[in-house]
């Protein structure tokens, strides 16, 4: 009964979504305020019914209802309850339901937190989001129904959740990621609404900014979590593989970064209007493209859901309609006249233009590399592979190119600035950093040119931010620190930029200086690595809730002093008979010590991998700050005010059917 109710809820949600797409939009065409006012209620309706469907599916999982196909395929009676719940989104059908749930949440949030916006705008925005909901609900109902039942041959128990997914990191990673992917539909909807309304001034940018920042922030956190999970779960100490599915999340992030910055420029200066609209369309299009790549079987990946070309075709048609339609709208309605607000070569606008360029190129490059094997295959030119060696070779220089510009960004003035002022501001500290950088490289590890360069570039970026912070604190009122001038907007930017610098530093240091050893160890054996001594003390059997494990205990010392006891395991999961390594990590700010068990050798010995990973945590701590920084910017007072301010520079048309409040 429960699955049928869930199915029904989903169908109702679909019908409401169709209503949301059509009715308010019709309202904007005919000037019917009543029709337009239905939009928020319809949004809530979709949320309620989608949440109900989600809840009912969760109940099926938690009650071990193996007559529901996805429960049978992804769960098991021995599975701990928290994983029974998260198994809901560990598969194609359930994750789609999560997608739609998150979309309807965003929709409702937009409906109720946009009091200051003209009704026409809200109606259009929600209509567009409704259209997306229609697409995904149709996809779910027609091709990937999570409520399919296995009757009358109901299995006695389920196939179990893949042990790799039985992990807390994997519980939050998809929801965070989807908050980001799906959240990018909000600036997309705003861009489409602005194009339809013909009003591409600074207002749409201002309205979209908080939504975009939050979505992008969540996307950052989701990607960060995925990387961290891969590191501690997979046993090889890697944190990014440039796998197509990873790239599918990274491309929207890159485009989203450009969008976040471009929106700032359009809001404050009224320029970059076409760029920003296009970026908003591109960012969400890449989200949709990611959905396609992950579920269609067009590319091989260890992460992909089970491939199904029929489902792929559905998504492709939907993609073609939504993206094709929006790009057509752009071609027809993008502003023909460039804004007259000029800026000089040396100005903040100019630096942000370079930022747009580099991130757009980066996203394009990742797209090209990911699709290249497909292109070659489609043209019958052979089977090629494009992997980490390629991506690292082209991506790293791009980021290195970006960073000097990033140094001056926070400092630069709008419209017109002078190189002499920059020199005056930064020359002395920049030289200090330039001297410190190689020194740090020598002091902390052996000298390495790339590491020194990373210290230099990251140091400069941090410097630029700190200098501007100092300015704000001290300018105008000598002798006191004006903390109030550090607005959430600025603080968020500062956190994010410094986070980025940390990520770059961590990535370079860990790639250049990590050490690893694979060797055979038995109890009593010891090995040296990275200045630490690893001694295997014992091997024992440890049972778990749904597995049995062989556990090895290691004593780690440095210069005779005890540092840690680490217990890596090799687990065999009872339901599926799958074997998995659970690595043991001693985490530290400056280094991680990492031990993973391989295969048993003989009676008492094991193949063991020891790793020394310096500064690897900086990657995720930095990424965390990027995400948090984005979320902090939204606390700024200007987004909490309800009134729409008067005409902003660059606007062309009048208010139309707007409701000022």
């Amino acid at each position, binding site marked *: 009964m429960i699955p049928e109710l869930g199915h029904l809820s989903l169908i109702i949600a679909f019908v409401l979504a169709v209503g949301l797409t059509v009715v308010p939009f019709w309202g904007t065409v005919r000037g019917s305020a009543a029709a337009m006012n239905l939009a928020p209620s319809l949004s809530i309706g979709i949320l309620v019914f989608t949440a109900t469907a989600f809840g009912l599916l969760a109940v099926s999982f938690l009650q071990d209802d193996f007559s529901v196909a996805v429960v049978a395929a992804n769960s098991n009676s021995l599975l701990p309850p928290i994983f029974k719940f998260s198994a809901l989104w560990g598969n194609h059908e359930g994750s789609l339901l999560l997608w739609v749930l998150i979309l309807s949440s965003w929709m409702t949030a937009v409906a109720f937190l946009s009091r200051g916006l003209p009704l026409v705008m809200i109606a259009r925005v929600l209509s567009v989001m409704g259209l997306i909901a229609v697409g995904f609900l149709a996809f779910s109902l027609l091709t990937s129904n999570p409520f399919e039942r296995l009757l009358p041959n109901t299995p006695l128990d389920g196939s179990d959740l893949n042990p790799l997914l039985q992990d807390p990191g994997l519980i939050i990673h998809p929801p965070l990621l989807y908050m980001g992917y799906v959240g990018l539909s909000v600036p997309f909807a705003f861009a489409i609404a602005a194009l339809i309304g013909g009003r591409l001034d600074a207002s749409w940018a201002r309205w979209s900014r908080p939504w975009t920042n939050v979505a992008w922030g969540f996307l950052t956190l989701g990607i960060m979590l995925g990387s961290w999970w891969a590191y501690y779960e997979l046993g090889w100490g890697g944190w990014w593989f440039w796998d197509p599915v990873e790239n599918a999340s990274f491309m929207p992030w890159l485009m989203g970064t450009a969008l976040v910055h471009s929106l700032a420029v359009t809001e404050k200066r009224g320029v970059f209007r076409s760029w920003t609209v296009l970026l908003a369309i591109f960012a969400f299009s890449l989200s949709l493209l990611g959905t396609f790549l992950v579920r269609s079987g067009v590319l091989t990946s260890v992460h992909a859901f089970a491939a199904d070309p029929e489902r792929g075709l559905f998504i492709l048609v939907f993609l073609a309609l939504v993206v094709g339609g929006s790009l057509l709208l752009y071609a027809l309605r993008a502003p023909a006249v460039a804004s007259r607000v*000029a800026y000089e070569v040396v100005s903040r606008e100019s630096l942000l*233009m370079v930022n747009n360029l580099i991130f757009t190129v980066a996203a394009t*490059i990742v797209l090209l590399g990911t699709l290249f094997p497909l292109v070659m295959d489609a043209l019958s030119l*052979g089977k090629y592979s494009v992997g*980490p060696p390629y991506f690292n070779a082209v991506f790293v220089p791009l980021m290195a190119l970006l960073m000097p510009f990033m140094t001056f960004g926070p400092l630069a003035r709008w419209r017109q600035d002078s190189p002499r002022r920059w020199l005056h501001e930064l020359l002395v500290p920049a030289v200090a950093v330039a001297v410190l950088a190689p020194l740090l490289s020598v002091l902390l590890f052996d000298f390495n040119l790339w590491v020194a360069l990373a210290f230099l570039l990251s140091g400069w970026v941090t410097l630029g931010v700190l200098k501007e912070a100092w300015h704000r604190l001290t300018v105008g009122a000598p002798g006191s620190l004006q903390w109030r001038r550090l607005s959430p907007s600025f603080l968020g930017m500062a956190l994010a930029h410094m986070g980025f610098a940390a990520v770059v530093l961590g990535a370079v240091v860990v790639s250049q200086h990590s050490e690893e050893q694979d060797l055979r160890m038995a109890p009593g054996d010891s090995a040296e690595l990275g200045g630490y001594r690893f001694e295997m003390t014992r091997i024992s059997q440890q049972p778990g809730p749904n597995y049995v494990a062989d556990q090895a205990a290691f004593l780690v010392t440095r210069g005779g002093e005890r540092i840690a006891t680490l217990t890596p395991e090799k687990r065999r999961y009872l339901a599926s008979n799958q074997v998995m390594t659970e690595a043991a990590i001693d985490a530290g700010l400056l280094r991680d010590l990492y031990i993973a068990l391989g295969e048993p050798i003989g009676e008492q010995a094991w193949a063991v991998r020891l790793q020394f990973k310096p500064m690897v945590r900086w990657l995720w701590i930095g990424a965390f700050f990027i995400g948090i920084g984005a979320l902090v910017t939204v606390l700024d007072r200007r987004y909490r005010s309800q009134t729409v301010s008067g005409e902003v520079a660059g606007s062309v048309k009048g208010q139309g059917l707007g409701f000022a409040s």
Partner: protein
Amino acid sequence: MRDGFWGLALVLCASAMAMKVHAVIETYEFTSPALEQRYHQLSQELRCPKCQNQNIADSNAPIARDLRVVLVEQLEAGQSDEEILAFMVARYGEFVRYRPTVDRNTALLWWAPGLLVGAGFVALALHFIGRRRMPAPALSDSEAAQIKALMAEKDP
């Protein structure tokens, strides 16, 4: 999530053993640390021909293990990186290289990043040069008169 992978593995070559899903940790003895370094680097550059996008260093598949053994043998035999890669490509095709070779087909792939960035900067430069040539819009006579009147209004 890994259904496709399991399906493929089972069809091609099932074994009665439990399926392993992890990084491979094997112990090879190398005659020099430089060789071990090259082993790590090459085993990450070579793709497992059978797996769902894994390099031979990380894959548990039998063919990946065989290729690792071959790699060690070739390294110890004094083969250069190019020779080893050519050996693998002759048998498994370009598919097995994660760093695509630079040939006519892949020219676009390798040149694109530089070209795109370069083109972007050129476009930026042209944009600014164009701006410089375009004179600022001048006030028409009526507009000039309007401003004059407004200014007079302001100062009593």
